[in-house]
């Protein structure tokens, strides 16, 4: 399959109804509607916000239903000119890479909203949350460099307010750190994307355009050396957002200090903006540069896996532990992405969804524990299993999914990533696999300290999971099990797009995928120790 297949805008169309646009606009309208509710009626603002969030979730599921598997190109493409002079358009489309991220966003927001309501100022909280959702979905759907940037930036402001308004003790520092780190990255991205468009126009001799598909298909227009610099400008923004190893330091602060709903969204959705960005604006836009920088990024990913795991082991704060586990998981996703193999990429995309579900669920659970005990210190919690067996059970499932136990969703993703990266970067994969072991170390150890043993008097009165909380956790647990047992429908939809993307990289660089990887389905069943390698 060639790049032409990737660029083709075929597939299912939603029969005239602008489904994707409504996915972006509806939450934004919801934010406005919530903001207009009288501030003396916090319940009704919560109700309005929930209705909009659920409706958006329904729309995203409708996107998934309308999505045709077996198609590699962008589907349901909608395009309207926005700024004529610059050829910036409202260009939305979904493919196998983005479709599940959109659904994940649609599902996680209502769950976060219901599972972790704020303690004060309901109205602005919900309004910001809905605005954040609009931005996140917009990022995943944007097919215009410019629109992507706009959405990428919109996301910042609501999250800043969520952290600094409803977070914990050290929220101001954390919020500002988050804001400045990310804004710093996006400043570079802005420079990079404007330069990309300008150089592309100069290279082709045509008019200026910001259309992602056009620029990505004219690969010859920008000199390879220049493209590497441009890739770096984008990579800085994405590396901060993911976050990759040396620029990850905002993450533990932001995740720990954010309110529970904020942490869920931050870990579940917003980190994916970076990894998704690497796929869409790294591999697709700059295939040659991606292949060139792959060793660097794979190395950073592996460092992240080990570093995140080691630091997570040392944490005394349960939430911080989960936050550092994200660094490790996202390292895996980077490893898979820059293995540049079909399996690795498939695993990465799947793992983005998995991480969103598992870590989102973990943050919800930690939030529930905090609500009851008003502490997150592992040392102060003990024997919760005795007091709350159901919660302990749910925690176990979620934790095991995060560790990557076979039969649960985390395993499928991690396995595919390791398989794919083993084909091209054997030793990195071997070192990265240590991270799986370390994950079981820190999570199981934490579980043991928190849930096992005899509860002391402070923990004896620990309340069992309520029905409402159970209803929030149920869909997440169901997804964890379903994706672990039967990932095929998901992988089938991811695969064509991913294969086309790898082919696109092959077409435009001297990288060739090892043959065993290209055999697709058959290779997956083959043992990784077989003929492979570089």
């Amino acid at each position: 399959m060639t790049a032409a297949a990737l660029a083709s805008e075929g597939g299912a169309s939603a029969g005239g109804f602008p489904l994707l646009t409504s996915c972006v606009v509806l939450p934004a309208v919801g934010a406005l509607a919530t903001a207009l509710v009288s501030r003396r009626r916090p319940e009704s603002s919560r109700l309005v916000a929930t209705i909009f969030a659920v409706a958006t979730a329904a729309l995203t599921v409708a996107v998934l239903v309308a999505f045709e598997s077996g198609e590699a190109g962008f589907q349901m493409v909608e395009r309207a000119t926005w700024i004529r002079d610059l050829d910036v358009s409202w260009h939305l489309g979904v493919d196998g890479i983005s479709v599940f991220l959109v659904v994940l966003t649609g599902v996680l927001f209502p769950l976060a909203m219901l599972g972790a309501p704020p303690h004060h100022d309901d109205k602005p909280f919900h309004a910001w949350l809905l605005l954040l959702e609009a931005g996140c979905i917009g990022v995943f759907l944007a097919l215009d460099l410019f629109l992507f940037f706009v959405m990428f930036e919109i996301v910042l402001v609501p999250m800043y307010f969520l952290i600094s308004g409803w977070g914990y003790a050290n929220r101001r520092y954390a919020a500002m750190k988050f804001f400045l780190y990310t804004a710093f990255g996006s400043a570079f991205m802005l420079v990079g994307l404007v330069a990309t468009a300008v150089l592309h126009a100069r290279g082709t001799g045509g008019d200026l355009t910001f259309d992602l598909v056009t620029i990505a298909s004219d690969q010859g227009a920008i000199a390879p050396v220049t493209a590497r610099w441009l890739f770096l400008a984008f990579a800085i923004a994405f590396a901060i957002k993911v976050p990759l190893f040396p620029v990850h330091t905002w993450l533990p602060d932001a995740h720990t200090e954010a309110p529970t709903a904020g942490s869920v969204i931050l870990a579940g959705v917003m980190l994916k903006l970076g990894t998704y960005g690497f796929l869409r604006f790294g591999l697709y836009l700059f295939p040659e540069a991606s292949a060139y920088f792959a060793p660097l990024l794979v190395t950073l990913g592996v460092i992240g896996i080990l570093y995140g795991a080691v630091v997570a082991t040392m944490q005394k704060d349960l939430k911080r532990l989960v936050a550092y586990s994200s660094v490790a998981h996202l390292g895996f996703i980077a490893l898979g992405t820059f293995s540049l193999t079909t399996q690795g990429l498939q695993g990465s995309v799947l793992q983005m969804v998995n991480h969103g579900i598992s870590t989102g669920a973990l943050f919800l659970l930690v939030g529930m524990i905090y609500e009851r005990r008003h502490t997150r210190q592992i040392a102060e919690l003990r024997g919760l299993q005795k007091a709350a067996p159901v919660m302990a059970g749910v925690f176990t499932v979620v934790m095991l999914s995060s560790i990557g136990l076979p039969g649960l969703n985390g395993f499928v993703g991690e396995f595919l990533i390791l398989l794919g990266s083993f084909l091209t970067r054997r030793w990195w994969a071997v070192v990265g696999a240590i991270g799986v072991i370390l994950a079981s170390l820190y999570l199981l150890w934490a579980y043991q300290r928190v849930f096992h043993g005899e509860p002391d008097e402070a923990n004896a009165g620990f309340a069992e999971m309520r029905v409402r909380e159970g209803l929030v956790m149920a869909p997440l647990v169901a997804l964890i099990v379903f994706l672990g047992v039967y990932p095929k429908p998901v992988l089938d939809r991811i695969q064509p797009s991913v294969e086309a993307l790898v082919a696109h990289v092959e077409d435009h660089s001297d990288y060739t995928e090892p043959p065993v990887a290209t055999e697709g389905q058959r290779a997956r069943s083959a043992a990784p120790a077989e003929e492979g390698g570089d």
Partner: protein
Amino acid sequence: MSFPATASAVLAVGDAVPFRSPALDWHALAPEAVLVATAVVVLLVDLFTAERNKWLASTLSGLGLLGALVPVITLAVDGNTRSLFGGAYVVDDFALVMKALFLVAGYVTILLSTDYIGEGDYWEGEYYLLVVSSVLGMTLMASARDLITIFVALELLSIPAYLLAGWRKRELTGNEAGMKYYLMGVFASAVMLYGMSLVYGGTGTTVLAGIGRQVAGSFGATPVAALGIVFVLVGFGFKVSAVPFHNWAPDTYEGAPTPITAFLSVASKAAGFVAILQLIFVAFYGRDEVYGPMMWVLAALTMTVGNLIALRQTNVVRLFAYSSVAQAGFILAPLAVAGDSPAVADDAIRAVVSYLLIYTAMNLGAFAVILAVSRKTRSGELDSWGGLFEYAPGLTVLMTAFLFALAGIPPLGGWFAKFQVFKAVLGAGGASAYILAVVVAVNSVIALYYYANLARLMWFQSVPDGDRSPVRVPAAINLALALCVAFTVATGFFPGLVGHFGDAATDLVAVALRR
């Protein structure tokens, strides 16, 4: 025949040259004529009305500014470029766009002033007379294509501004504001005049187009030309408060009445940029190796120093003073690469004009909120902004919008301005342009810090004195806020709006390159 040649001939030999009265294009002069008439009427009305009817001055001057907008619009519809007085005064699309900007900014300033001046112990009639005179100077500046006309316009807009800056004459800070602004302004004028005299001495003409021809020719290569260009631009560097010529700005902004601070930080600054644009694109375009590096250094220094000092401010007006210094740096950036090629010149002027338009709306809006809030808190300290959301949610939301617009967060207007700057700078290419783009990028992040910090104070800090009584916002300020927020949001969503004006303004370059 060029203008000064005629003048000197007339002076030298009594009746050798028969005097021919210039053909006056009244349509082209109509905006200025309306403003002069407004100023006269306001003065007369002020002199012959009782104290309780002094509000008339504010209303009349507001109407006058809007009235002057009418001929601007008819001229724009007409679309012809009109050149008067031997090319010294040109009404083209660039001039019209800027005139409209000055008139609207002046109108918003009057809206902001109405209650502030009416309630305080101030002279009312004179205040509005001076605002109208200053706006007159600015509209004149937009059309001035001659060194002497530029200088006259500059003085006409500056002298009323010196007086207005010191309007709070019973307070020491007010005196300091007026005095500093006056001394620095006069010093800048002197430097500029020196530069102008060098340029005139070398070219023998004061008309910018004529200077442009000479600068592109043999005179341009002489060191005198370089010296003249640098001195003239340094003079306007003071006007736009570019670092290192910025040190009057914070004290003046703090001491001046807040509506005047808004006026100075927006309209007066824009007038300085208009002059710089005309000088660079019409007169000095051939010597980009002189003004290019100079603008590069000024832009980089201005935004960096402005931002870094803004980080440490505890007074909201001073914060905005330094932030407006930094914003001037962003506006200067495209000028550093303007000489690269005609296409880049187009982009640069588009960027500067769009930035000025959007910046005007954002900054005036922010000052409108500052005014409204300080009516209640009676304080300029940042701490007094704590918990604003609890008692003035509407103002908080508006201020947040203006702050993030200034920071360049989409989808509010500011991003398009920043984006245009990036496009112009990156379009030029080359190492120095890329470095400048990175400097701009890093600075927009630094700016985020203090904008976001103020936003956080408003939303989440507790009210410092526990006084949660609502803020009463006068109708005039409400109207000003509505205008500003409508423009800020509209340009964010439909940048074509401003882009259109930016495109229109590129005819300044067209004139420069046609010669």
